[in-house]
């Protein structure tokens, strides 16, 4: 088979980090080649080099056996390389066809020929089974479709080699399956695909070969059919990883958090959470599953007092905390691992010591009569740093100087120290590497086993299925259904995440049923 891409000894140095360290990487015609690695392993950097966004510090690139200098995405496109980024770059209020031809519009004597554009789009779409309506507006279509539009855009510009950076992060399980089919169709037409991911399941299902990166270097390239998830994980992390969770059977106790018909508006004044009701009990983890942007953020912020509620009631340990300010909510017994650790969870310019008391800084032993006790604060900080294994030269460095995983450990340590009856963990493992994810998972399960209530909000279905006792699926601000984790299947949750009920009916069916 012929090699369409060969990257030889690619090194990329950023100030302070070697993102790519003498990487050899090649792609054969018609294959799906996965780049696998933890966050920060250097996958995006390597592909940005191939796409001409970064210039390598050293190393050579060969396309179809010819050495090329790729100085810009224009060069890359001319060489038949297309890239679909993690964040889409589509014009929201343009139609699909307009987006696809943007920058490369068919015209007759300077006049835009939209009919030709639509025909071209339909033609490409049909050839690869993409099923995209050229006249739909981007703002009206789903994320999964928007991604197809990005793929179409690349194909329309003549891409033979398609790079996809973490394409599944935003998709429901069904959409991921569909994407798999589309990619297979593309390879059948002779296209080559480079897929970036850190999810093992997708690697095994979708790819022909896998190259594993760790800390900027290649660990190895394997034929996917010859390998297993355990083997890949070990190569990716550098040690053995256990996937099984040691979750004990456990009877849930009294209701700790009771949410009744809660409605919350987002900052634009649109109802983001609608009539949501659920309970979280002692000794259980209730997970809120759903695709990003379905009201999870607003739900958590309303529960923790960070934004106002429209209507409904929230009770914590029998105490009404509806619309109370954050301090009242904290004092009523809530710990909160926020979704955005940089924006909310930490004061990046402050020391770890100062960060590790945020939220109880005014209480003894850290403060008495408004006077802070530096000795106690430092002792406390050092104890948590040790107990939670935060890797840092000392507690007096700023939180901003730590890696993401260690920053998250600081937050987890601080919130666990409160020993709250309720912990709200919002995407607690986002952007963490496998080791740190294991750590957070273990801690959450320990909390549950010590009979605390945990509300877990997560976009990762694997995480939800591994940790939760019960799973509530949220779609467009509504809880579509709450199921026992033991009975839940990925397919069922996937349908619910797209608005269907656990029994397989869609949200639309049900609304009609109710109004009848």
């Amino acid at each position, binding site marked *: 088979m012929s090699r369409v891409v060969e990257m030889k000894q690619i090194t990329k140095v950023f100030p302070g980090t070697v993102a790519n360290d003498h990487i050899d990487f090649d792609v054969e015609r018609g294959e799906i080649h996965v780049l696998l690695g933890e966050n920060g392993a250097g996958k995006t950097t390597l592909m940005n080099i191939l796409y001409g966004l970064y210039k390598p510090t050293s190393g050579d690139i060969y396309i179809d056996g010819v050495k090329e200098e790729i100085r810009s*995405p224009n060069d890359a496109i001319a060489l038949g390389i297309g890239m679909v980024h993690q*964040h889409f770059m589509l014009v929201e209020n343009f139609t699909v066809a307009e987006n696809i031809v943007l920058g490369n519009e068919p015209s007759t004597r300077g006049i835009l020929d939209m009919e030709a554009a639509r025909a071209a789009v339909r033609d490409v779409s049909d050839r690869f089974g993409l099923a995209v309506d050229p006249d739909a507006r981007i703002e009206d279509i789903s994320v999964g479709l928007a991604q197809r539009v990005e793929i179409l855009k690349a194909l329309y510009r003549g891409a033979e080699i398609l790079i996809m950076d973490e394409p599944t992060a935003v998709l429901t399980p069904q959409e991921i399956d569909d994407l798999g089919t589309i990619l297979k169709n593309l390879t059948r037409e002779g296209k080559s695909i480079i897929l970036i991911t850190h999810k093992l399941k997708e690697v095994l299902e979708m790819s022909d070969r896998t190259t594993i990166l760790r800390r900027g270097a290649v660990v190895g390239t394997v034929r996917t059919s010859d390998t297993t998830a355990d083997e890949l994980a070990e190569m990716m992390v550098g040690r053995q990883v256990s996937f099984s969770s040691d979750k004990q059977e456990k009877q849930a106790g009294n209701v700790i958090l009771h949410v009744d018909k809660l409605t919350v508006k987002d900052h634009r004044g649109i109802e983001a959470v609608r009539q949501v009701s659920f309970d979280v009990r002692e000794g259980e983890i209730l997970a809120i599953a759903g695709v990003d942007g379905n009201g999870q953020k607003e739900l958590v912020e309303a529960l923790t007092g960070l934004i106002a509620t429209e209507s409904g009631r929230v009770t914590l340990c029998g105490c009404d905390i509806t619309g109370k300010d954050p*301090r009242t909510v904290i004092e009523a017994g809530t710990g909160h691992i*926020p979704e955005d650790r940089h924006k909310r969870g930490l*004061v*990046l310019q402050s020391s770890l010591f100062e960060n590790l008391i945020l939220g109880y800084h005014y209480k003894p032993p850290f403060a008495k009569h408004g006077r*802070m006790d530096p000795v106690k604060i430092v002792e406390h900080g050092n104890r948590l740093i040790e107990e939670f294994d935060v890797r840092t030269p000392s507690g007096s460095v700023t939180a901003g100087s730590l890696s993401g995983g260690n920053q998250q450990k600081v937050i987890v340590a601080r919130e666990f120290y409160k020993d709250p009856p309720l912990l709200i963990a919002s995407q607690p493992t986002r952007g963490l590497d496998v080791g740190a994810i294991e750590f957070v998972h273990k801690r959450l399960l320990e909390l549950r086993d010590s009979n605390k209530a945990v509300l877990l909000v997560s976009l990762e279905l694997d995480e939800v299925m591994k940790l939760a006792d019960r799973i509530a699926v949220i779609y467009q601000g509504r809880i579509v259904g709450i199921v026992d984790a033991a009975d839940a299947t990925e397919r069922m949750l996937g349908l619910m995440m797209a608005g269907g009920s656990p029994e397989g009916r869609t949200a639309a069916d049900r609304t009609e049923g109710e109004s009848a």
Partner: protein
Amino acid sequence: MKEKFTYVWSVIRLPVIAVVFGFLTGAVCIAVTGNNPVVAYIALFRGSLASIPGFGETMYKITPILFTGLAAAISFRCGLFNIGAEGQYVVASVAAIAISWFGQGLPRIFLLALILTAGFCAGGLWGGIAGFLKAKRGINEVISTIMLNWIALYLANYLVRIPLSPNVRAGLSPAGHSVVVPEVAKLTKLKAIVPAFGYSSAHTGIFIALISAVVMWYILFKTTVGYEIRTVGLNAQAAEYGGISKAKNTMLAMFLSGGLAGLGGAVQIIGLVYMVNQSPMLPGYGFTGLSVALVGNSHPLGCIPSALLFGILENGSRQMQLAGIPSEITSIISGVILVFIAGSLVIKLAGDRIKAKWGKRAMRTEQEGL
């Protein structure tokens, strides 16, 4: 020990380099005007530091700008830009005059305490108005404090001209200045304690300023109040998440900031000028205070050497003039220092922005490439 030193150096590096650059630029300018920079700087420092009365002159110049420097510093720490120290200073000086006049029968210690408290509260309330508007209505404090400055000035002019005017009180037509602070309410001159201060008008207000700096340092770095103010200043969203009210701390910081500027006004009245004149202009101490805080790294103790620097420049410029060197040189020096510091802050901010935007920028490059 070494670690501590490295840390301190990392904090003071910028101001130190800025000052060195300021003086170097000043030296070039002096040389361009055909004078000898060495002679000029000797005159500058000798005049402001070398003799006790000379140093006394420097000290009384430091007093008000240390107060307004502290005022600016605490507002910066809360992420606010209080450019209303001017107005806060003015309302407090009028309050000080009024209290000293109407309370002249009171025992001295009691009266002084009352005047200082009134000055602090008057300035604090004036700052607090801007804090309230910011916290409850989201009105930008830069705009509201500028407006309040002018309101303060014209209000003061009215009060000074009519109710507090000695002429009006004596039944005559209004005059352009207030009554004079009675002897009992005047701060002690240093020369009354140490005769060596000779001709200098330095007064015990400098000690009130120094104590205020230490107290402010304590509040900011050793109490929960300071922790909350600093947290709001560094990351308001994280503060809210930690149960710290942004609104409350915004108002509190503006109150403290205004209070310090107000204390400066009251001390200046009873320590040095003893009356308030009707004036078409704001006194300018508030703006110098912004410079003091910038050079002092918004640290209350850092404001002390920083205020000393500006005091030296102001007092020494007269001495340089006597040595035949244009006094504008000192303005050039302080200007260069400020441009340097503000410039590097802007560069640092922009740098952070660029880092944060890197990903996005890379993508934009791609779009432009199409």
